[in-house]
C-alpha cells in the first residue's frame, strides 16, 4: 500500500466525495454486470483494492459526470434521500430492475461541521463488500432479454429547487417484484444502504 497520509478524520466534504465516487463506480459496475452496454466499452481501474470496470464510452461519460456532480452537491447539503438506477426495456418501456441506494445523512455533521473519526481503510473495505455483492448478484438476477436502457432517479427534499436539467418523475416501481437487500456502508457522516428489486 502506498504511504499516503492516512487520516482518520472524515469531514462532510470528504464524506460527500467518498459517497459520490461510490455511486459512480457502483453505476458503472451495474451497467457492466447487467450487460446494458457492450463489455468492450469498459476499462479496468484499481479502486477499493478491487479491479473495477468503468466505461470508456465518451457519450456515457458525458451523461454520468454532470449527474454525479449534481448528486455531490445534494449530498453536501444532505437534501438527497435515495438514488435509484432503473433498468427498462427499450421497446416496451417496462421496468425490469430497480437498484435503490438509500442515503441517510447525519444532520449533526451538517450543523457543527466537525470532522468525524473513521479510518479510510474501514470505509474502503465496506464499500468493496457492497461492490463485490453487486458483481455477485448475477447469480440470482434473471437474464435481461432484449436491449435495455437505464434511468437515474433521485429522491430529494420536497422544498428543493429543481435545477435546470432535472424534471420531476414518478418512483417507477416494479409491479410484481422480488427484493434483495444488499450490504450497507457508512462514512460516519453518510450511511448508504443498497437493495435491488427485480421482476419475478
Amino acid at each position, binding site marked *: 500500500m502506498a504511504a499516503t497520509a492516512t487520516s482518520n478524520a472524515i469531514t462532510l466534504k470528504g464524506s460527500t466525495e467518498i459517497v459520490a465516487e461510490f455511486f459512480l463506480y457502483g453505476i458503472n459496475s451495474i451497467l457492466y*454486470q*447487467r*450487460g*446494458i*452496454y*457492450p*463489455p468492450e466499452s469498459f476499462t*479496468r481501474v*484499481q479502486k477499493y*483494492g*478491487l*479491479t473495477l470496470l468503468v466505461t470508456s*464510452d465518451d*457519450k*456515457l461519460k458525458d*451523461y454520468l459526470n454532470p*449527474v454525479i456532480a449534481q448528486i455531490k452537491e445534494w449530498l453536501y447539503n444532505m437534501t438527497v*434521500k435515495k438514488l435509484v438506477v432503473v433498468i427498462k426495456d*427499450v421497446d416496451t418501456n417496462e421496468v425490469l430492475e430497480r437498484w435503490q441506494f438509500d442515503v441517510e445523512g447525519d444532520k449533526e455533521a451538517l450543523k457543527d461541521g466537525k470532522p468525524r473519526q473513521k479510518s479510510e481503510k474501514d470505509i474502503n*473495505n465496506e464499500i468493496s463488500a457492497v461492490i*463485490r455483492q453487486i*458483481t*455477485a448478484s*448475477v*447469480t440470482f438476477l434473471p*437474464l*435481461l*432479454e*432484449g*436491449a*435495455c*436502457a*437505464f*434511468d*437515474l*432517479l*433521485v*429522491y*430529494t*427534499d*420536497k422544498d*428543493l429547487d*429543481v435545477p435546470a*436539467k*432535472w*424534471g*420531476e*418523475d*414518478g*418512483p417507477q416501481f416494479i409491479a410484481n417484484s422480488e427484493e434483495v437487500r444488499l450490504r450497507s456502508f457508512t462514512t460516519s457522516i453518510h450511511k448508504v444502504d443498497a437493495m435491488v428489486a427485480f421482476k419475478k
Partner: protein
Amino acid sequence: MPTQKGKTPSKTPNKQSGPDRFIPSRSSQDIDLSHFAIMKEKGENEENDPDWSPSKAPYQNQLNTVLNKGDNPQDTKILSFNNKCPAATGHSNRMKVLYSYSKTTVPKSAARNIPQQPDRILDAPDLLDDYYLNLLDWSTSNILAVALGTAIYLWNATTCTIAQLLNMQSENDYITGLSWTPEGGILAVGTNAGAVQLWDTEAEKLLRVMTGHAARVGALSWNSHIVSSGSRSGAIHHHDVRVPDHHVGSLIEHTQEVCGLTWSPDGRHLASGGNDNVVNVWDTTLALEGVSPVQTFTHHLAAVKALAWCPWNPVILASGGGTADRHIRLWNISNGSCVNAIDTNSQVCSILWSTELKEMISGHGYSQNQLTIWKYPQMNRIAELTGHEARVLSLTMSPCGTTVASAAADETIRLWKCFAKDKEKVKKTAQTKSVKETFSLPSRIR
C-alpha cells in the same frame, strides 16, 4: 412500545411487542400505524358518521405511506435527469451465455482419441456441495482420498478396494479440506472446527492435531515438512510438522475465506486465492511470516479457488474465477503480468496441468458441468468431457499423470483417462477397457 389507547383493555397489558409463534418477526410491520388505522375505523363506526369526506384525507395519506413503503411522497420529490442516457446500439446482452445450454463446438483433434466416457464412476454419497472446500486428493502411492461429510474414505486405485480412514465424532465438525504429503502415506485433514489433523493412513492412526485457526480450514498445501492451511477467517498458517510448536508463520492478507492454496513445485512460492476475489503470491525464501505478497492480482471478479503452477515453467501460474468471473487467467509472477485471459462461460472450480502433451484441464459448473481440456499456450479447447449431472467441485490427477478424477455435486467421482502416455498401445487398451467399465454397475465407495 405502543401505548394502549383503546377502550378495550388488553389481556396482557405488559406484553412486549416481540415475536410470537404466529408472527415470527414484527419488524416489517409498523405497529403504530396499524394501531392508528384500526382505532380510526372503530371511532367512525361508533359515531355512525355517514359523511366520509373529513376522514378520507388522512385515510388516503396512510394508504399513500403504506404503498410507498414508508416514504411519504408529500415530503419527497423524485427527480430524474432530463437528458436520457445514450443508447447502446446494436448490442445484444452477453450475459446470455450464463443461462443458455448450447454446446460449444470443439475442433476435432486428429492427433489422439480422448474417451468421452469416464473410465470409472465411483459413488460418493454425502459429498458436501460447497464450492469453497477441497475434499479430493490423489497420493503418489496411488490412493484417492475423499471426504464425505464427517468421514474420509481411501480408494486404492491399484487394488480398487475401499477403506474408511476416519469418522469425526461430532456432526458439526465435518471435513473441510485434505491434502497428501508429496511422499504419500500421511494425510493432512482440515476440519470445520479450525483444526488440522495429521493421519498416518497405513497404520490408520491420528498422529497429531494442530489448532490455531479461528474458522474452518478449507485449503491445505504441503512444502516438504511444512503444511500451509487457509481458513475462512482469511488467515494462512504455516505448520512445521516435525516440532511441537508447529505454528511457524502466519500470512494475514485475505479478507475473506481462503479457498485456493498451492505451493509451487520448486517450493519457493505460495499462491493463495480467496473469496475476496484476490490472488496473492508469496515468496518465502527469506522468511515465513511478516512478509507481504510479492504479487497481488485483483483482476478476477469472483472467488478464486482454482490455482495451479505450471510444472515446466516456474513463473507461470493459472487461476480460475467463480460464477461472476468465469475466466481462466495465466500469470507471469516474476513481472506480474497477465499473460492470457480466457472466458470459459462457466464457474471454474479447479485447474490441472498435464506435462505429457503440454495441456491443461479445468472443471466447471453450470450449465454443462464439463471438464475442458486446453492446449497450452494457445489455449484452444481440445475436448469437453461431459457426464456430470451437477457442478464439478474438485479435480485431482493420478500419480502416473494419465487419469483425472473429478468430484461433483451429483455425488459421484468420475475417473477420466484423458492424458494417455504411450499413444498407440494405450489408446487401444483404453478404448476397450472404458467400454467394459461404463456398462458395469458403478462401484460404491461404501
